[in-house]
């Protein structure tokens, strides 16, 4: 960063915010529909990163191309988690799914340790180190890809929820479960689809995260924290709100680093999260 140049951290913050939004969209959707705080979301995103890594190292697939394989797998995994674990836990108590999510988180972290060792990995591609320029300033190309992916996934989820029958049913079930059941919606199946679709976004987020930052089996925890911050700022359950929340969080982080030094940038982020929680607990765009 050039000294005195505020444009660079600002642009970096916006682009990084797109990645944060991408990571948070699935968390936001599962909460919005099922009122479930999915503690395993960060680890499921990292599972997506390892999926990309596996396809890249074993089959030589570009991580973005590899999504063709990992998206259907993550979709099925999400449906199965909801149907066989969460769905049953919902019948026991409202805390049970939270504990199951925590259990999934631990299982994934340890499985990834065994499979991939605790060493840090990255999704390095031929275009990983390319950059693009705005005027005289240079930015990493991967950040632009992150931002683009964030916008595309957000718009796609939004269009899905607004325009398709299944999307409307998911929205209806999130607003009033009993009324949705009485309208002939099989809420168990709809929840399964909602979780599965959240896992599609996690698969995509995992790949773009892995192309931007190195990751380890325990990275999920820190990205879960970022995703929490994003949805708290943006408002749980709103796709557009989550996206804008991600951008705000990204900008706060990079400008915080610019003004107060890199060591305090995340501190500034969480101070802002706490301020939002105190002033507007439903988030800036929440209902």
């Amino acid at each position: 960063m050039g000294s005195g140049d505020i444009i660079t951290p600002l642009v970096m913050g916006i682009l990084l915010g797109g990645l944060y939004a991408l990571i948070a969209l699935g968390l936001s959707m599962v909460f919005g529909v099922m009122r479930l705080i999915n503690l395993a979301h960060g680890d499921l995103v990292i599972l997506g990163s390892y999926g990309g890594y596996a396809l890249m190292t074993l089959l030589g697939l570009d991580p973005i191309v590899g999504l063709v394989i990992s998206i259907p797998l993550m979709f099925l995994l999400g449906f199965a988690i909801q149907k066989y674990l969460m769905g049953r836990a919902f019948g026991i108590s409202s805390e049970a799914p939270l504990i199951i999510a925590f259990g999934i988180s631990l299982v994934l972290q340890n499985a990834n340790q065994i499979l991939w060792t605790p060493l840090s990995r990255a999704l390095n591609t031929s275009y990983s180190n390319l950059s693009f320029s705005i005027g005289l300033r240079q930015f990493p190309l991967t950040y632009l890809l992150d931002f683009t992916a964030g916008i595309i996934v957000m718009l796609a989820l939004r269009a899905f929820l607004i325009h398709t029958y299944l999307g409307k049913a998911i929205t209806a079930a999130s607003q009033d479960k009993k009324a949705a059941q009485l309208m002939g919606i099989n809420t168990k199946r709809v929840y399964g689809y909602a979780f599965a679709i959240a896992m599609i976004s996690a698969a995509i987020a995992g790949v773009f995260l892995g192309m931007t930052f190195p990751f380890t089996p325990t990275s999920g925890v820190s990205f879960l924290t970022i995703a929490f911050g994003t949805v708290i700022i943006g408002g749980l359950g709103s796709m557009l709100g989550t996206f804008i929340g991600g951008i705000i969080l990204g900008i706060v982080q990079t400008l915080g680093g610019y003004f107060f030094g890199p060591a305090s940038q995340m501190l500034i982020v969480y101070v802002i999260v706490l301020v939002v929680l105190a002033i507007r607990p439903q988030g800036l765009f929440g209902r």
Partner: protein
Amino acid sequence: MSDKPLLRITNIDVFHGTFQALWDVSVEIIRGETLALIGANTSGKTTLLDTISGLLHPAKGTIEFEGKDIAWLDPYQIVELGITQVPEGRRIFPDMSVLDNLLIGSYNGSARSKKSQNLEKVYQHFPRLQERRKQIAKTLSGGEQQMLAIGRGLMADPKLMLIDEMSLGLAPIVIDELFKALEQIKERGITILFVEQNVRRTLKEADRAYILETGRVALSGTATELCEEDRVKKAYFGVEVCGV
């Protein structure tokens, strides 16, 4: 009207956890009639509707719809068979448009293919819903929300419609409008089971009625028969409820 009941509930007991809400309740609904369930709060009316809809299941007894046992089906399967419920408090989807609320009503398979015809019919019953189809549902007035709830139920293409406390909290002029719509709906051949606390109005609108008291059927019969019962008069405000 045929003699064979459309819905036959035989000796059901229903519990909320350990609390028994219905005791040995038997109810029959004949195809094409309008049947009323009358009773005070906590008499078990809503419990009975929720049991028919599959949200609750009876611990004992049977529920047959068109001769098929439905007591253990899930709510969405019950809707597919042709029973729809307009729940108490309307429970429209507040943040969705009027049109989307109606479309959700036709979510289940067979109703979805008839959704444009049914939408047309709903707009005939309630022209105001057509005018306001793009409006967000929670911005409607109470009466309009009730119209939306009934319209949404009709979108499921039902044979039997369960309507819970339709007139609660609404102005008399709106209630008249809603009952007029129910008459049209009945003329289309849809059987109606409705729950009300307004006894005078109910006995005027219904062909037959069941009176529930603390989870048991206390009385049943045609409106005229019930009017002759002293117990009805006594139980409900101790005044003349049946008119002249």
